[in-house]
């Protein structure tokens, strides 16, 4: 009911708009021809009679007013729109905004990839230790060749991908990273304890790398153990 009434109102308003536009058109069309006809008729009565010339003067005044009213709405909106300077300024500002946005996106991407993905210390140590274990024959004999490494014994993907680690600095300012992770092969599985420190030549070196094999038989294997160089003169 309300919808139908609203639609009727819209139709009535549309008819009203059409009527107003038609009335405007009808008003505009007779205004254009009258001036030349009046001028032509005005010239003849001036040469013949004085009373007719006065009447034609009044009509010409009215025609001038109508012409002035007609010209204003046509000229005003067309001549007041400048295009080129505004377009150039807007384009420049948009370019600056786009460059700023791209800069922010690049900075965010750089921070994400550099700080969080490429350089976590625990994953670096984990990769080195796992490669050392996969290439070793003692471990390969016991648990088989394709050796998989994962962080925690769980079915959750995030838990398996997270490596338990601890980072500490000793009294000489050397940075140490300890990691624990699990390894699994076709014939058995085990747990790995590894610690590395950053040496004087800025390279990571093993402090210890202990593999505790739990299946198929229990065993402990020390693959790496750091012994500092000793000189009697110091």
């Amino acid at each position, binding site marked *: 009911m309300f919808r139908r009434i609203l639609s009727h109102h819209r139709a009535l308003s549309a008819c009203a708009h059409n009527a107003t536009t038609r009335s405007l058109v009808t008003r505009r069309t007779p205004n254009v021809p009258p001036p030349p006809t009046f001028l032509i008729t005005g010239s003849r009565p001036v040469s013949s009679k004085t009373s007719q010339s006065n009447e034609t003067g009044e009509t010409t005044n009215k025609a001038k007013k109508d012409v002035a009213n007609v010209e204003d709405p046509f000229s005003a909106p067309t001549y007041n729109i400048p295009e080129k300077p505004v377009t150039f300024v807007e384009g420049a500002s948009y370019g600056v905004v786009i460059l700023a946005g791209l800069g922010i996106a690049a900075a965010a991407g750089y921070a994400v990839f550099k700080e969080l*993905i490429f350089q976590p210390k625990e*994953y670096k140590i984990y990769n080195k230790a796992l490669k050392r274990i996969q290439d070793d024959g003692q471990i390969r004999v016991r648990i088989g060749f394709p050796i998989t490494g994962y962080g925690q014994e769980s079915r959750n993907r995030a838990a398996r991908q997270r490596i338990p680690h601890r980072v500490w600095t000793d*009294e000489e300012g050397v940075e140490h990273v300890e990691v624990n992770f699990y390894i699994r092969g076709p014939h*058995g599985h085990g747990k790995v304890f590894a610690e590395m420190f950053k040496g004087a030549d800025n390279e990571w070196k093993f*402090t210890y790398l202990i593999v505790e094999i739990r299946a198929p038989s229990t*065993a402990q294997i020390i693959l790496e153990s750091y012994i500092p160089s000793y000189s009697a003169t110091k």
Partner: protein
Amino acid sequence: MGTPETSREPCPDRILDDIGGAFGMGAVGGSAFHFLKGLYNAPRGARVVAASQAVRLNAPRVGGSFAVWGGLFSSFDCTMVYLRQKEDPWNSIFAGAATGGFLSMRQGLPAAARSAAFGGVLLALIEGAGIMLNKFLSAQQPMPMIVDEPLPPNGLPGQPVASAPDAASQSSWLGGWFGDGKKDEAAAEATGGSETKVLESFDAPPVPNFEYK
């Protein structure tokens, strides 16, 4: 092998688990979303009926889409685990990129490449947020780190002591093994002393027994 230890490997069975979990997430999330959307778009007086109808129409479709995505993602993740023989965040990033590209393959290679890049970036952000959250949670416990700092100097004097008899005695095998044992015992004692203060997720290395096999 039929032992329960080897059946702990999650990868072939995890695909089915992830399909079910993804369908559940999609169905529940889609139900909530389309219920609210139906409430908003319905005329007054018929909101509940229209909302329930929208849920019944759209929730299974959203659940199905999530299940397809989750199943493909888990399959690619297991493939990456098998190929690389290690588990780290890169597996998830590659799996996300592969899933996005695979689902857009029928729209042409440019669209597939774009979807793969978008999937990879999305998973990279998710993994980055996870690692940042993990660092933030571990940083909230500074006390064990402060307590652990004085203990390593106790281990450091053990190293020269271990190396000195090694150089002095010059015994080829037993002396070297015994020296290693001393150093490891010192390190184990140092870390063993702080065992009660270390985080639960981190285990101190065990004292090695010398059963050479």
